[in-house]
């Protein structure tokens, strides 16, 4: 047992274990009845209706006007027809009121209906599908006599583990995770970048304003769109280069340079917005960067995963990666052994700036607007993700994979707390405690390895 605990797996990947445990905890906390409404459940429901006693079952399918409900209704109708059961009508209602109107119409037209196939959402929240309301309808319209609603059986499961939720966790936190990649580089060189949240807003504003004024406004072509995205990222990259120059050539501590840049970038964002809450992007297609998918996976997630893999390769298989660790471990020694310390530092801040620029472009695409308040306090969340992921603020230590896990740990906590409706004050307490625990772990591990 003791040997197991001391194994390299636990000491190196302790944070993965934390993530798994947190996942299990949130799974347990969100355990409850699940209400399936996919085509498979529809087919199952249809089979149940087929087996009803009597051979004059006339079914009306009643669902909402959404894409997934259309598929669900079609699955039910197809299966029922295959088994020779009459499908009297498929009603896709925009509101519960419309559903009632359509059912009354069936009654007026004397269409025989004695079973309604629906799903849990409509069954539980639409007044017209309650048995008492249906009995009322049947009293007025003889063709609806004895009508009963049917829905698929519920099963136990966790909302947290649903595919929809897991995808949305990754998607929501992609901008922070992307910025955390850049921050990992910076922190490994024993630096810090407080400006990422503000650069994100600046990037979103540059995207919105340049699209409006230079790249064609509402008629912007896709070339115009990409030009706006690229110029926003370019400005943020140059901001990173500026930070790098100040840190190296003028020996200004990175904390101070990036604190100043944080204020300047935030100020510039508000200036660009001209006092408005947000600058609207009217170009069509601007939202595609955020809402588009690749093989069914949202663009943001694909982008994030690709960047993590890329960063991992850079850090573990290239000269730049070795230089970054060397600079963070001991800058003096690195310089003496021929590492271009200044250039490495400038490059890492440029990467961090570019990552913040990308996050800003994604935010602009998400909200189809540039918001000067975007990314407020994100710098702290980003730094927290990196630190929880095991990087040392003293420099020289940290892993890209760890940062990914760190970002996901914070994401899972936030998701779990939101799902339970725990207010943000408590969430902040947990965040704070977690960051402290992570750093403590790091310290203990360092100490024990020194003693070993």
């Amino acid at each position, binding site marked *: 047992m003791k040997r197991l605990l001391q194994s390299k797996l636990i000491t190196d990947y302790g944070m993965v274990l934390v993530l798994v445990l947190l996942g299990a905890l949130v799974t347990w906390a969100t355990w409850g009845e699940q209400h399936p409404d996919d085509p498979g459940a529809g087919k199952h429901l249809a089979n149940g209706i087929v087996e009803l006693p009597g051979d004059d079952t006339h079914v009306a399918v009643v669902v909402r006007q959404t894409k997934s409900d259309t598929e669900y209704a079609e699955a039910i109708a197809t299966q029922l027809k295959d088994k020779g059961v009459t499908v009297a009508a498929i009603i896709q209602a925009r509101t519960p009121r419309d559903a009632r109107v359509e059912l009354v119409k069936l009654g007026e037209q004397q269409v025989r209906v004695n079973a309604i196939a629906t799903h849990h959402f409509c069954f539980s929240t639409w*007044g*017209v599908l309650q048995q008492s309301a249906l009995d009322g309808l049947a009293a007025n319209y003889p063709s609806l006599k004895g009508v009963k609603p049917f829905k698929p059986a519920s099963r136990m499961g966790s909302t947290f583990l649903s595919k929809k939720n897991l995808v949305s966790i990754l998607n929501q936190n992609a901008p922070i995770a992307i910025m955390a990649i850049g921050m990992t580089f910076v922190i490994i060189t024993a630096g810090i970048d407080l400006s990422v949240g503000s650069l994100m807003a600046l990037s979103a504003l540059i995207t919105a304003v340049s699209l409006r004024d230079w790249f064609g406004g509402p008629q912007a072509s896709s070339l115009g769109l990409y030009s706006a995205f690229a110029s926003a990222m370019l400005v943020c990259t140059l901001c990173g280069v500026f930070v790098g120059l100040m840190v190296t050539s003028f020996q200004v501590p990175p904390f101070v340079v990036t604190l100043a840049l944080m204020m300047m970038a935030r100020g510039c964002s508000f200036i660009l917005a001209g006092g408005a809450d947000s600058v609207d992007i009217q170009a069509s297609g601007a939202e595609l960067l955020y809402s588009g998918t690749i093989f069914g996976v949202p663009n943001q997630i694909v982008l994030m995963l690709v960047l993590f893999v890329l960063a991992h390769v850079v850090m573990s298989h290239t000269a730049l990666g070795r230089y970054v660790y060397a600079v963070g471990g001991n800058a003096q020694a690195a310089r003496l052994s021929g590492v271009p310390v200044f250039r490495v530092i400038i490059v890492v801040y440029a990467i961090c700036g570019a990552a913040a620029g990308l996050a800003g472009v994604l935010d602009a695409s998400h*909200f*189809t607007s540039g918001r000067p308040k975007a990314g407020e306090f994100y710098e702290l969340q980003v730094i927290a993700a990196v630190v929880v992921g095991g990087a040392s603020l003293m420099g020289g230590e940290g892993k890209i994979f760890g940062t990914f896990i760190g970002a996901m740990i914070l994401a899972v906590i936030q998701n779990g707390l*939101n799902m339970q409706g725990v207010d943000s004050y408590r969430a902040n307490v947990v965040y704070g405690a977690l960051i402290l625990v992570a750093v403590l772990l790091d310290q203990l591990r360092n100490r024990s*390895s020194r003693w070993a």
Partner: protein
Amino acid sequence: MSGQRTLWGVIVIAISMTSCDNTNTPGTVNKSKGTIGYSAMSFKNPFFVVIKNNLEASANDAGYELIANDADSDVSKQANHIDEFISKGVSAIVLNPTDRLAIGEAIKKANAAGVPVFTCDLQCIAEDVDIAGHIGTDNYQGGTLAGQAMVEALGEQGGEVLVLDFKQANSCVLRVDGFMEVINQHNEGRREGKIAVIAMVNGGGDEDIGYKATSDNLVAHPNIAGVFAINDPSALGAWKAIDEAGKNEQITIVGFDGAKAGKQAILEGKIFADPIQFPAKMGNDIMEKILAYQHGEEFDPVELIPTSLYKREDARKDPEIQN
């Protein structure tokens, strides 16, 4: 050694998570009709806490649970809340839109998932979004009440008036528009006793900013006779500046909101009058709208609650205020 300590750390985190989780004891799922998801503007403002408490009470009465999340005035947090509500499969979503335009994309997602969205306080102005119902304050009407209170306070003499506005919020722009309409009517055809708005400055909707803005303007315009502030915090900031300058007798303050602190200030004579909003009614009525929607009944899709003017004699009778 270190492995054991890692494990201890893990246990500490797990305990801290569960202890914060247990406001809603998991596992004990009581048989409710469903869940209503509420994403509030900000619980730092008691106005939204009142909405939440009343929404929760009326939801529970109707057999629903409420999940209330704090968007902290951040539209991206609010968009995340909507995603989570969709994943959780709530029966309806209630929002105080943090951004009237940018929240549109998130609402479209809820529309696509077939979850009805109700707004409260601010109205979403994005295109192609489907809002099942809205309830808010008639801010323009409130502004006219504030104007009437100012006319009443200054009387036939008229005088110079300072307006503390907050242009970022459309609701506050409407309040000033309504106020100006009454003031302009008062001034029409008048040679003497006009009410002159000498400055409209940003009060930030905040005590501190309202204080600084008023202090500066008291120096620039020593004869100010009245201040209209678009909410209670900025009105209280104005009072502080006026009190420090010793001009309490000279200047009348009209605020807006009728939050507890504002009502208290009216009782103490610091603020002359407030057009008051009714957050408790908003919380109750939004649940009524949800139920009406579900039952397919006719209801007013956009309801603006008129404000009413609240003065010292109202405060004396108000059980909410302690003497």
